[in-house]
């Protein structure tokens, strides 16, 4: 087994390097959908810009949404999102009543928020003549009732009113321009709804009815003639009708149905892409400088051994980045900080080993035994301290919100990989190096000149 280890490590490095650098690689996508997904470095919204909205599902009349309802809501929202054409949307449920939507590169956040957040329950409510009056077709004059006909935006306060039918009877809808040039949303009813509508309109010519969306009246026209074809339209406010955004949003909502429970925004973040790009550049630069400083430090402090540790560190960076792309881990600003921090942790193992090796060298051991002792004696500390980091990282991963989870995942991957690279890879290279005579001076492993002289005279003996 030991004979193959170098080749195995080399193969891992090459594979990781290929994953890091080759463009257009893809993996079979998980789940039932099949297909493939591209291997790429995923950036969080704080680095690429975009809209993130967190929703809480609201109970209705004391009844809370079940897990199935939550899934239904998620599906409907996802379909609404997809209809907007935003690339790479993410719609997830979180906990018992949360839905998180992440949309990279959105330029019209307000319109999208309006589309996603609307419950979308459409009701057609007949307004009884005795109360709201009617339009007298014989005289061409409206007859006032006890109450005024509700206008656009008002809510129907009268609880005795029941809808004739609701949005689920709508088969299709589209944006159209009516005869007077106003933008309207027209819809076609399914046969059951069409029959109901035909029967009711035939018997109630002149009566008013209200088209109500999520409790607010959109329009309240009167019946001019029996509507038997199952087609009708909602006219928007103002002289030109609906705004374009509003009309297309309404069509989308009618198309995918209403949410079984209303949802409320509890948090919204909108980052402009330029700002994200600036942060990414700064963070990458800072990370690179940090890594270079660590390289220099190791080289100056532990000399040859430090150079070996640096090779292992390069190896570490290659592998971790490949895993980030494979999983994929969504990198945020905090995630990049976590990665830079994990580099500090990765060299910690090497520092432990080399300090121990130095101690063994100082008491007069040869290079070979000193290095082996360095590894075996430092192992306990390395394992214990990495486990302690894993404990806190797992707690963060399990209990944290999604930003925290990303950071924790970076730490977990970093700690696990560093155990491999800092110990296995470093040991492998060092073993190959120390057998060469010209690499056998303790000076090359960081022992100070003064200690060396003392060692030569046999003064130091621990």
């Amino acid at each position, binding site marked *: 087994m030991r004979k193959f280890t170098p080749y195995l490590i080399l193969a891992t490095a090459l594979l990781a390097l290929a994953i890091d650098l080759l463009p257009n690689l893809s993996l079979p996508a998980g789940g039932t959908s099949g297909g493939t997904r591209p291997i790429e470095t995923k950036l969080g919204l704080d680095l690429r810009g975009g809209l993130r909205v967190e929703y809480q599902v609201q109970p209705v009349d004391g009844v809370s949404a079940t897990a199935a309802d939550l899934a239904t809501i998620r599906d409907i929202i996802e379909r609404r999102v997809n209809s907007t054409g935003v690339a790479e949307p993410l719609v997830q449920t979180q906990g018992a009543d949360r839905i998180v939507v992440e949309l990279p590169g959105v330029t019209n956040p307000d319109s999208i928020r309006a589309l996603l957040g609307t419950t979308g329950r459409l009701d057609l409510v007949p307004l009884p003549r005795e109360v709201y009056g009617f339009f007298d077709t014989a005289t061409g004059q409206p007859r006032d009732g006890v109450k005024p006909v509700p206008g656009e935006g008002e809510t129907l306060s009268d609880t005795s009113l029941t809808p004739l039918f609701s949005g689920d009877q709508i088969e299709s809808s589209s944006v159209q321009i009516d005869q007077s040039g106003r933008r309207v949303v027209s819809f076609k009813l399914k046969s059951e709804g069409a029959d109901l509508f035909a029967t009711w309109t035939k018997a109630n010519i002149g009566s008013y009815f209200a088209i109500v969306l*999520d409790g607010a009246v959109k329009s309240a026209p009167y019946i001019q003639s029996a509507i038997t074809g199952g087609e009708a339209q909602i006219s928007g406010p103002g002289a030109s009708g609906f705004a374009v955004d509003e009309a297309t949003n309404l069509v989308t909502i009618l198309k995918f149905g209403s949410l079984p429970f209303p949802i409320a925004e509890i*948090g919204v973040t909108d*980052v402009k892409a330029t700002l994200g790009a600036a*942060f990414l550049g*700064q963070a990458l630069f800072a990370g690179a400088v940090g890594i270079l400083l660590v390289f220099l430090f190791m080289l100056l402090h532990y000399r040859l051994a430090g150079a070996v540790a640096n090779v292992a560190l390069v190896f570490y960076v290659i592998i971790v980045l490949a895993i980030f792309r494979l999983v994929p881990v969504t990198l945020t600003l905090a995630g990049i900080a976590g990665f830079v921090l994990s580099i500090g942790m990765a060299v*910690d193992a090497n*520092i432990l080993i080399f300090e121990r090796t130095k101690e063994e060298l100082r008491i007069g051991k040869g290079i070979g035994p000193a290095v082996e002792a360095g590894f075996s004696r430092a192992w306990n500390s390395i394992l214990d301290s990495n486990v302690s980091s894993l404990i806190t990282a797992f707690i*963060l991963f399990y209990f944290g*919100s999604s930003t925290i989870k990303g950071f*924790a995942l970076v730490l977990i991957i970093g700690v696990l990989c560093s155990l491999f690279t800092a110990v296995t890879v470093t040991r492998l290279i060092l073993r190959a190096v120390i057998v060469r005579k010209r690499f056998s001076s303790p000076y090359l492993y960081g022992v100070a000149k003064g200690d060396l002289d003392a060692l030569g005279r046999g003064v130091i003996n621990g």
Partner: protein
Amino acid sequence: MDKIIARKRWFFLFSLVITIPGLLFTLATPFSNGTIGLKFSIDYTGGTIWEFRPENPADPLVVQEAVSSAGHEEATVTEAGTGFLIVRTKPLDLQVGQDQIDNAGAELQAIREAVVAAIGPIAEEGSVSTVGPVISQDLTQQALLLVVLGSIGILLWMTYRFRNLRFGLAALAALLHDVIVTVGFFAIAGTIAGIEIDALFVTAMLTIIGFSVHDTIVVFDRIRENLVRHAGAPFGDIVNHSIVQTLGRSFNTTATVLMTLLTLLVFAGGSIRTFVLTLFIGILSGTYSSIFNASPLLVWWEERAQARKAAAARTRTA
């Protein structure tokens, strides 16, 4: 170097000196109505942050007046350094399902118009972030839960690995020291410089907890090893020897980690500056507490136990 244990009282005293002021500031937080102690970001308090860069440099006070005239007297406006201004208000525009379909962003739009009327056009929009009361409540509970769980996790792990509750408790004490120092630092920084702690603060706290215990583990491991090798030697001498032996490693590790954090602090911007600063303070404190608190605490404990045993023996012989 050979007197670390002998001088342990001084090191404990130093820890008191660096923990107590911060602790006082922290404890004053709930009673001072936001003037003294930790400053919480909108992640905890709920609210909206809007960042933008005006075409012409503008006085934050003028902007504040404009926002206030748009109906938001609670607003505060600060400068972000790169020409950006930051407006903080109560949560804006959170849509509830019953809202109408077309009014998302209306409140912010009103504020934006008022600002443009006062100081001219906006050159660049940065980000808008709104946190409602539901999330902020979640976070506050989550913060406490995470720190408590992290501490318990480390206590159990240390006790298990060293088969000794004292090692676990000493590590826990060092770790709480770091939590208190870090929180205290931000309580003071919040009072003096208005530095806010955000959702990432807790993440940093837990990372510190996991990381600061590294140094403790390395020293404790060495103590365990030396206890076998130098069986019979006084416990205090063994601990002191172990600390000195591992000092090089502790300093070098801390140096590399702090170096990387420092580059992030200097070059990286945005939301992680406070995060990185938190890690920096915590890890610095972690190295100190591991060397000068955790191990001396073990000795103090052992000496007390022996003194009690000796006293018991005296009463028996008497």
